[in-house]
């Protein structure tokens, strides 16, 4: 024997799964929604997305290289995903420097300050988004109208989101039948013809992405489905009690960031529970908080806050909600 044999502990084979493959599959799953948003918002969407991605990658690289002095890991795709999702959470007419600030907060504060990928308690893109929402409320809530504002970036024609219209209308004391004339139909909502953040408008494109994530086994169904179920159940009860004072469950499901949040942000590995039991608690919590903020809170939309709040509970859930151990119940009974 001229060559030395390798000695290693079992197993001696691997699934071939890798962090970067998972991340790039998320990017692929976001592609349909990106295509739709480019169709509706054109220029603005393109500019915001590119700036967000580039600055996220750049900040991750710079912080790892010069501040933390470790080998940069931008090729693992996680910063790319953060950049995309951050962009998806912004209006398409947002000035470029605000996008850059959002990226700094997302990567620098949301991710790197905790030690990088795997250690951040909160979804980095959402940290960036909520920071911007609180710091630049006017910029962050003036939504360009789809299609009409396709060729413009900053000076796009803006309007309110369906959720804001409903909130304002109900606040004034209007009934749902009056308000419903001002908002798009359910079919339009499903296709994404409404004002809103870049990536949250087209439910159908996001659902295609969801299917892709399930097929490639990047995520399991538990978190999105538990969020959807909770929102439908909660708003459904309210709607049944008083259909004139509450929007219907389908409207709640299709508007705002529910689809994007439930499918792509709540399922972020690092900031979600590790196994189905915990995922259900997490998803139900997000659903409840979202509806509470939407119906009784100051903001028309609440999924971002809901996810961040539940993110904070994830360590607790992981600690106290354990998967069912094999052979456990039998031991208790016998």
């Amino acid at each position: 024997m001229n060559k030395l044999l390798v000695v290693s502990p079992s197993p001696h084979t691997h699934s071939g799964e890798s962090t970067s493959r998972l991340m790039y599959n998320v990017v692929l799953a976001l592609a349909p929604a990106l295509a739709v948003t480019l169709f509706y918002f054109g220029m603005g969407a393109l500019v915001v997305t590119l700036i967000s991605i580039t600055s996220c990658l750049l900040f991750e690289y710079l912080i790892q290289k010069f501040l933390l002095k470790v080998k940069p890991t931008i090729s693992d795709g996680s910063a790319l995903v953060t950049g995309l999702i951050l962009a998806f959470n912004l209006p398409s007419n947002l000035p470029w420097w605000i996008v850059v600030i959002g990226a700094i907060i997302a990567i620098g504060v949301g991710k790197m300050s905790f030690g990088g990928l795997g250690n951040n308690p909160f979804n980095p893109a959402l940290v960036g988004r909520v920071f911007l929402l609180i710091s630049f409320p006017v910029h962050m809530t003036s939504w360009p109208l789809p299609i009409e504002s396709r060729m413009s970036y900053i000076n796009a024609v803006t309007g309110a989101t369906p959720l804001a219209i409903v909130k304002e209308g109900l606040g004034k004391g209007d009934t749902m039948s009056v308000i419903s004339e001002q908002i798009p139909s359910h079919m339009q909502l499903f296709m994404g013809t409404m004002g809103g953040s870049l990536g949250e408008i087209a439910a159908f494109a996001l659902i295609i992405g969801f299917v892709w994530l399930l097929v490639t086994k990047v995520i399991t169904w538990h978190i999105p489905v538990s969020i959807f179920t909770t929102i439908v159940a909660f708003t459904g009860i309210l709607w049944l009690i008083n259909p004139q004072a509450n929007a219907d469950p389908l409207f709640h499901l299709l508007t705002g960031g529910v689809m994007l949040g439930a499918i792509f942000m709540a399922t972020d590995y690092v900031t979600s529970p590790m196994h189905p039991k915990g995922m259900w608690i997490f998803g139900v919590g997000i659903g409840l908080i979202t509806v509470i903020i939407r119906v009784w809170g100051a903001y028309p939309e609440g999924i971002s806050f809901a996810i961040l709040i539940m993110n904070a509970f994830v360590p607790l859930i992981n600690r106290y909600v354990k998967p069912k151990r094999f052979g456990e119940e039998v031991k208790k009974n016998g």
Partner: protein
Amino acid sequence: MSYSIIISTVLMLSALGVLAAVVLYLVAQKFKVYEDPRIDAVEAVLPGANCGGCGYPGCRGFAEAFVKADDITDMFCPPGGNAVFAAAAKVVGKDAVAQDPMIAVVRCAGAPQHRPKTSVYNGASSCKSATTIFSGDTGCQFGCLGLGDCVEVCKFDAIHIDVATGLPVVSEENCTACGACIKACPKSIIELRKKGPKGKRIFVSCVNKDKGGIAKKSCAVACIGCNLCVKACPHDSIVIENFLAYIDFNKCKLCRKCVEVCPTGAILEANFPPRKKKEEVEVGSETA
């Protein structure tokens, strides 16, 4: 209107503060636990490294046991040394018996040039993990694996893997003889020995229990159990068991005769001045 808001706020908060203070006071009274004040005093003189070298869980644990103990002759704080221990003994009004300073010694000198590799380890970087699947990546199944479990447990930055030899090196200054590395080493290579006058000490840097021929084949600097050192020792301090020599540091008078006769250079001397006569004698590394 605005005054009344301010006043009511101030009153409200003050009331809350007072209430909290009362509750805290009552709780503190109810759950008060008497503690011997000497425990704090002893803990204060200890180094506070919580290394566990004394055999108790941390300095506090030691202090508690120390204050309670009737007989303290078996107790010692290795990182603190005699001065700290004497100070601690003073707190409880007992006399401390001075102990010889000790140091951790690595009993393997099988650098790559002496001990050729026979396989490549590819797994978690942990000696203990490696021992679950094989005896080592060289012909010697007793020697150091070099994956640094000892380095990882050292709280005093006193042991490091030498890049050239792949073996751990103990720092004379930093080592407190707490014994953490000894417990961590799955090969039982590290041992506590008397530091010796001015750090001078002699030891067999090998733990290979194979027959001489086999040991020699797997490592050029292995102890082959040839008995030459036993014969050379004028103080009767060397014994051979399982083809392996061991020097009793309580009997050794540091005459260095064994070092001179060892055919493989397995006996090392540390911190001795260079020999005057320019003989062709194999001298071990100065660092041990």
